[in-house]
């Protein structure tokens, strides 16, 4: 067996139980979380445990194996579900100011939004492209490994209490119209304008196990890599590199960087503060 940084005496029961649980999930359901950041995955599992009546991770294991619905609730814990429309408005502002002029020179634009969660940031990009007159020649592929969040993303229905913050973000992001133009309020929810979905394809894709999306002009993957261990980070950045056309843009979360990865020299910084990178020509 491959040795990792856990030394024999250093692993407490909880860590052993977490490893058993992840191995059971891999064997039973085919999801491999071994490349995720261990500290992250531990926190998520312990959080799910605290919401259950179980006393230990080991106690939870039989139900994870035998009850698919319970497993799926755990899976939802593992994905990143903290998102909002125009999250980090300054990113969208920089994208509009610096990336859009380049995209305008292309006849057709292909964008891959990896780890799209419940879709708020995908629709934000759709709104931005629409306002820039680019939406009709764009194709957005929005992917996530979690079917539950993808379903929500497809619906494009969000709680009404979020609208105030989203409107504020939209304005900070340089929005040109009124945010209210893009949704209908319906009791406790807002339903996003259906036309925003026209150029979006939502699809199941797992960054851990699945392959490239070819010839993308833009790859957006924000606040996903921070949950991965270094090896998996390197694999996924390689995947993005192979998916991008030359000069294609890679957009990461505002505290993510390529600095500690093996691909740093394959990209050049384009908008440094906003973590927008460009695939280097001819590496």
């Amino acid at each position, binding site marked *: 067996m491959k040795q990792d*940084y*856990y030394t024999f005496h250093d692993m407490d029961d909880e860590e052993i139980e977490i490893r058993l649980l992840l191995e059971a999930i891999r064997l039973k359901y085919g999801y491999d979380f071994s490349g995720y*950041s*261990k*500290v*992250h995955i*531990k*926190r*998520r599992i312990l959080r799910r445990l605290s919401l259950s009546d179980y006393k230990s991770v080991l106690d939870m294991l039989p139900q994870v194996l035998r009850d698919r619905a319970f497993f799926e609730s755990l899976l939802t814990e593992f994905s*990143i579900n*903290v998102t909002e429309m125009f999250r980090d408005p300054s990113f969208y502002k920089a994208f509009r100011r610096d990336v859009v002029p380049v995209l305008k020179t292309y006849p057709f634009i292909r964008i891959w939004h990896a780890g799209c969660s419940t879709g708020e940031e995908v629709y934000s990009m759709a709104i931005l492209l629409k306002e820039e007159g680019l939406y009709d020649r764009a194709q957005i592929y929005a992917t996530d490994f979690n079917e539950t969040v993808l379903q929500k993303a497809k619906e494009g229905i969000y709680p009404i209490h979020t609208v105030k913050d989203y409107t504020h973000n939209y304005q900070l992001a340089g929005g040109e119209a009124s945010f209210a133009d893009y949704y209908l309020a319906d009791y406790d929810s807002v339903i996003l304008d259906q036309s925003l979905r026209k150029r979006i394809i939502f699809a199941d894709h797992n960054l851990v196990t699945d392959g490239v999306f070819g010839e993308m002009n833009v790859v957006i993957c924000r*606040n996903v890599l*921070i*949950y991965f261990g*270094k090896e998996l*980070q390197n694999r996924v950045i390689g995947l993005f590199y192979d998916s991008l056309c030359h000069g294609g843009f890679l957009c990461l*979360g505002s*505290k*993510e*960087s390529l*600095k*500690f990865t093996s691909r740093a020299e394959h990209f050049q910084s384009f908008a440094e503060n906003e973590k927008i990178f460009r695939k280097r020509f001819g590496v």
Partner: protein
Amino acid sequence: MGYEAVVIGTSTGGMNALKKILIQLPHDFPMPIMIVQHLSPHSDNYLVKYLENLCRISVVEAEEKEKAAAGVAYIAPPNYHLMVDHEGCLQLSIDEKVNYARPAIDVLFETAADVYKDRLIGVLLTGANSDGSKGMCRIKEKGGVTIVQDPETAEADAMPRAALKAAVMDYRLSLDEIGKKIIELAGEGNVK
């Protein structure tokens, strides 16, 4: 075996308290220091610049997957939790708020306690809420040393009081004494 890391948590009044402690540390302080100061999600890195200018140790904003180095204080960025992994690398997360806070002190303290166990120094300072209490208990449970600012000397006493109520802490000190105590503990077992 000596101590390997210091974690510090603070909220209201933290800027001044951090200054008073960090300013005492020598540039060759033998451990990394990881800090959570509650901040507004939209704040800039003024705190980092302010402390970096005043201190002999280096003060930076914590970066994702960076290996924590001795003599450097890492401050959690606004709107991200700061954690540390088994290789001593820093990790950020946008997970839900804990104790209404992101960054949350408990998140840093709990992960650091798991990694450094009895080789960790936990310090909880002034603050107007009860974040950090669970984390201090975890550090104590794992054999680390716990230092709480004496509530009588704190700009906001709720946070140190909550920790003192949650468990018996090793030291209850003023800010000046905390700096000295950290240096003293750092010297123990680190003398070659």
